[in-house]
């Protein structure tokens, strides 16, 4: 099962790097632990939901910030708040951190700052999405090869 071992090692390394770089935090590990036979695709499911939600929220924020007549910061703040909640629930640490900064700009009603944060959020979100997709692909490969997903602590 050399292939499996190799894949597993790849998986572990990749996971570790994601953690190291701050893309994921401990919460993600918790999610992985929750995955079991009863819900074998749990992590993928949660991640997909998160991406969908994220896109929707980013769009909302963009629209709100684009308003020329007057930005409804409350609305932006609500969206950021929700994004913060969901990103922290999934363990998307970098996204969450941007959200925290984003919120203070919202409170200060700083449109420029908000726009900058929005850009950052979008960027982080795309990065994370790619990385997770890679990770999931590795997972699939391991499973397809007959192995099991190693738990990364």
């Amino acid at each position: 099962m050399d292939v499996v071992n190799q894949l597993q090692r790849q998986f572990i390394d990749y996971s570790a790097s994601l953690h190291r770089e701050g893309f994921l935090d401990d919460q993600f590990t918790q999610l992985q632990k929750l995955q079991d036979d009863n819900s074998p695709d749990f992590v993928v499911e949660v991640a997909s939901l998160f991406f969908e939600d994220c896109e929707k929220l980013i769009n909302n924020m963009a629209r709100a910030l684009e308003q020329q007549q007057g930005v409804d910061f409350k609305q932006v703040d609500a969206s950021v708040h929700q994004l913060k909640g969901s990103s922290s629930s999934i363990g998307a640490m970098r996204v969450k951190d941007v959200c925290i900064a984003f919120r203070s700009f919202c409170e200060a009603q700083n449109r420029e700052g908000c726009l900058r944060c929005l850009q950052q959020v979008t960027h982080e979100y795309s990065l994370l999405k790619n990385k997770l997709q890679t990770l999931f692909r590795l997972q699939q490969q391991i499973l397809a090869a007959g192995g099991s997903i190693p738990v990364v602590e």
Partner: protein
Amino acid sequence: MRVGRVISDENDSFPVGMRVLAVDDDPTCLLLLETLLTKCKYNVTTTSQAITALKMLRENKNKFDLVISDVHMPDMDGFKLLELVGLEMDLPVIMLSANGDTKLVMKGITHGACDYLLKPVRIEELQNIWQHVIRRKKFDRKDRNGSGSQDKPYIDSSEAAGLGNVDQNGKFNKKRKDQNEDEDEERDENGHDNEDLSTQKKPRVVWSVELHRKFVAAVNQLGIEKAVPKKILELMDVENLTRENVASHLQKFRLYLKRISCVANQQANMAAALGSVDSTHLRMGTMNGLGNFHTLAGPDQIHNAAFRSFQHSGVLRRLNTPSGVGISGLPSSGLVQLSPVQNLGNTSTNQSKLQSFVIPGNHNANILQGMPMSLEFDQLQNNRAASHVGQFPSVDNTTVLPVSSISASLIDAGCSSSPLLGVTSNSLLLEGSSQLPTLHARNLRDSVSGFPNRSTLSDFTSIAPASNQLHGSKADIQDQASPISCNAGKIISSAPQDWNAPKKDAPYQSNVPSCSINSLRAVNGDMAWLGQCLDQNNPIFNRNVGFDFVDPLSIKFSEGENLAMEPSVIEKEGYLMVQPSRQGSYIPDNEDENFAMEPSVIEKEGYLIVQPRRQGSYIPGNLGSLEDLASAITKQDHDKGKPTDGDFGYNDYSLRTCI
């Protein structure tokens, strides 16, 4: 929405299979929550909409053991849901949020949450949430066992439950829910069996408007300090009602009052700043809730002002037209006694502190000024009311709370979710002076909104019949009174000089409604028993329901609307009833929240009933004309056969605002 696995034998293997309802608009979090809860072996049902959650809960109150809800939701504020669930279903609710701000957590607690979790939520935290369910049950049991000591269980339970929502079966149907469409009609069933999680099988008691009215009256009669479940139970004389039911209800009421008192305090302060009659009225209005007055404890002046203005309105009405005066509260001395709501301090929402405001019998225009309205409020906290009240004829402090009970019942009837507004009968101090302190509507509103999730008792302030003053000598009062006498609507016409309400004629009305609106949340339209709900007041209430009426300007709204209550007020049995619009959607929240439901709430049965205190509150001394007035009023009341007072001997002028 997904339903988790059904696990049988839940009773035996508790907490396994504990039925949890999870509400969160964020799908990621919801899925995560569901998975975590399932991992804890609970029986999970999820929904992303608060409205759906409420619907499910209402369909079958015994379907769930625990509710976990997000704070930030688009269709309904989490705190509101929290309150509604607490009041209607009396289930433990855990709040969930990504924001762990102390203020928010505090808000959760005051609204009755038994716990506040931060996102991302960990499984370890969820593994212990079943304790809240058990704790609640245990306290119920304890209440049952402990015969005389009503305090202990309350304290314990409140501490334990974190929010004084330990009540077995009491349900408060106070607030009106936004979604009133699904609202049940007033339920009068008692002893509705429910299957508890544990082995305890307590029939669920539904606190209907009528029941709550009795409760409030009993509490008023006993005095907030002396109101012990046993005595309350005796006074209420309701079959199938246990001491425990009353105890838990009382706890909620106290919590509610406390919340209101905080709000009232703020409002009082604001009102002081305003110093206009309007505000006073407003505040008074808001203070109608029992709690409100207490909260007004703030600046004395403010209170006074508030009372004054309020009283003017109410009292004027009454004084001038004993027969027609809507304020039946002036019976004996025309003073409504503000009984210190001791429980304001309590977080238990159920305590309805009826404050009876003491209406100074003297005709000094400024008597009220000196009157520490805040006293009443303070009293609540410190039970110092006596000292303050001293200034006024000592009327007992029974707050008039038929309103509250009424409102409570109304609320029940109308909106299941509406919190029961504690009705605090604030005796309206009769103020001869024309400067009626402006009760900051906001206070009222705040206090009302501060309703703990469980007990939102409609507060109503009893308007101390300042009428005697009005009646009498004081020029101020007279001025003010005269309008009142002329017609209810005009009670305060002269009073609120500062009032920018468009219609000066009905200042009182507006005030009242505002007051009541604030305090009374979902008052049922069915409060017909109250006497005469003034339909006309709806407009006023409508506005205020959302606690917006806190704003003195809110009266303005009412003005525009149909303050028709006047005639009815006067004619009826001396009640000043302001009937807000009926929708009964209770918008519990606080000043910042703008509940769309407001209008609806108003629509429902909100009555602002000001029921002056009857015989009990006789204010010796200065009463002079007040006495005459009072007796006239009393007679009138008797003649009118006030429905509400009769039973409880509660003569306070209670404004019942149904919202």
